[in-house]
């Protein structure tokens, strides 16, 4: 009896794991498709055709068309593709900054540590959107303003995490012994600590993607980012705002839904990877 129950349990668990792996694969595939197709469709996204303007969603134009006859589906995918590529780049830069700062804070002595802690507090002390606006203004707006803004503002919480982790590691016996054996601080940091911090780093990096994408969309929505001709999801949504009161609901609804779907899948895929990286919670 108990054997049967066990088997059933095992089967259920296997199915669930299979299901979650399937869902993970599907979301990664979806994100890849959006990124690739959006890149391919970049030119098609800005084609205007006044014979088909203001069409509500139909079989030919899934998301409808806007007042210039642009296909909203193609435009949205192109915009999201750029968001995904920009998000990957900026999150990676941010994570590397966080890693280096966190590590140096804990290894290079108290003065550096104080400086890094101060920097962290400073970046976290200004509301995120305002800091993005300030950096965008400092760069004279445009593409680099957005890119730099997102890359330079997302590292703070991960840096704090890594710093804390290094503080704990520093006290561990094997690092102390290595230190007593005369290994340099840099050697300790990169040979003994860095491998230990890798899981934290990867988890932090992956969980940063959705934030980076959301902030890119938000700052572009406010009008600080890219120029209006470029297909960016924030621009699509801010243009659609002018037509909300006129009942052209499809201009805002579908692009926003797709954006939410992309961010959600990043969240989901990221959580799955993190769970796989932490074997202790695999069975939850």
């Amino acid at each position, binding site marked *: 009896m108990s054997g049967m129950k066990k088997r059933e349990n095992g089967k259920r668990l296997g199915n669930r794991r299979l299901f979650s792996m399937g869902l993970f694969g599907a979301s990664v595939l979806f994100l890849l498709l959006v990124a690739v197709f959006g890149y391919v469709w970049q030119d098609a996204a800005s084609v205007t055709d006044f014979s088909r303007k203001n069409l509500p969603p139909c079989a030919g134009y899934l998301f409808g068309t806007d007042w210039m006859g642009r296909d909203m589906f193609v435009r949205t995918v192109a915009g999201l593709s750029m968001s995904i590529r920009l998000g990957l780049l900026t999150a990676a830069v941010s994570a590397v900054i966080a890693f280096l700062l966190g590590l140096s804070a804990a290894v290079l002595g108290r003065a550096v540590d104080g400086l890094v802690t101060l920097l962290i507090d400073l970046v976290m002390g200004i509301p*995120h959107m305002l800091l993005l606006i300030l950096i965008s203004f*400092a760069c004279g707006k445009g593409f680099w303003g957005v890119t730099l803004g997102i890359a330079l503002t997302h590292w703070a919480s991960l840096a704090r995490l890594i*710093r804390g982790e290094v503080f*704990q590691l520093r006290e561990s016996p094997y690092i102390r012994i290595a230190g007593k054996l005369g290994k340099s601080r840099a050697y300790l940091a990169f040979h003994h600590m860095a491998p230990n911090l890798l899981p934290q780093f990867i988890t932090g990096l992956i969980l940063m993607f959705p934030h980076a994408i*959301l902030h890119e969309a938000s700052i572009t929505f*406010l009008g600080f980012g890219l120029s209006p001709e470029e297909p960016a999801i924030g621009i699509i949504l801010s243009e659609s705002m002018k037509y909300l009161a006129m009942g052209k*609901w499809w201009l805002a*609804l579908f692009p926003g839904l797709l954006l939410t779907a992309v961010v959600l899948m990043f969240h989901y895929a990221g959580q799955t990877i993190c769970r796989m990286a932490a074997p202790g919670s695999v069975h939850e």
Partner: protein
Amino acid sequence: MGVGRRAHRSGRTGHGTGKTVWGLLAFQTARMALLVALVSILAFVLLSVSPVDPLQTNVGQAALGAMSPEQVERLKGYWGVDLPPAERYLSWAADVLRGDMGTSLLYRRPVAEVIWEKLSNSLWLLASSWLLSGLLGFTLGVLAGRKRGRLCDRLVTGYSLLAASTPAFWTAMVLLMVFAVYFKWFPIGLSVPIGVTAEEIALGDRIRHAVLPAAALSLTGISSVALHTREKMVSIMESDFVLFARARGESETSIVLRHGLRNVLIPAMTLQFASISEIIGGSVLVEQVFSYPGLGQAAVTAGLGSDVPLLLGITVVTAVLAASGNLAASILYGIVDPRIRKGAAR
């Protein structure tokens, strides 16, 4: 938070300095003042490296072109354009300490006056959505964390994930489409009806205009508090002392109320106070959608219109708001947690 605690062992920040609540308060206040000063320096540096030409934005391109070189030189001298940045910063900071934050270029009024007006509009919005999202998020988190893996837990976790993935401005747009454009229950924008003098505005009108923006802010703000509370609650409900309470025969309700809530409340409160800066960030987006004349919208207008004094002022004021949130959190921590209150921590 756990990391923060651990870091305190290095003896730099936090509760180790003063044994009493008063010592703590003084230390944290000084820290906050220092932080705000540094924030203003950072913002000043960012604004002054901008390629935007201060003369051109102040006078306008046409007027600048019509001026003779001597006039331009005189203007430059008057505004101190060629002075080193440090000198400019110091003169700005000295004025701020006297209560003069400069004159806004777009509104043509003192910055302090503009900020005060916009802030009093925003404060309603910020306070109500902060309270609402905090209470709702906390309740949902406790309900979800009571028993891991139940339907309730999955619903709350799923909702929180969805809310964290939805851009705040899009939530606002959907609310606007459904409740203002389609059902026409709420006005489309602004904070008061158009064509009504300030004295005639009824409280009801103000509230009607603030409902949708506040809802949009709260709906997205719930997720972090809910998830955090849930996680803490799960770990408490699986702890040894709860197991012991169960063995003693305490009812599930009594365990949640007596052992769960008490332990979850402090971290949740800390998180909620720290989230003030996030709510301000969200309000920038939401106010833009509803054309609500608050601080967030003023920040966007100032940024797009190169209104440097106003943008600088708003940055400093929001940094003060966010820092006072953190200050309040650490004071509450000291008052609520008996271990810290009695100076017996660690």
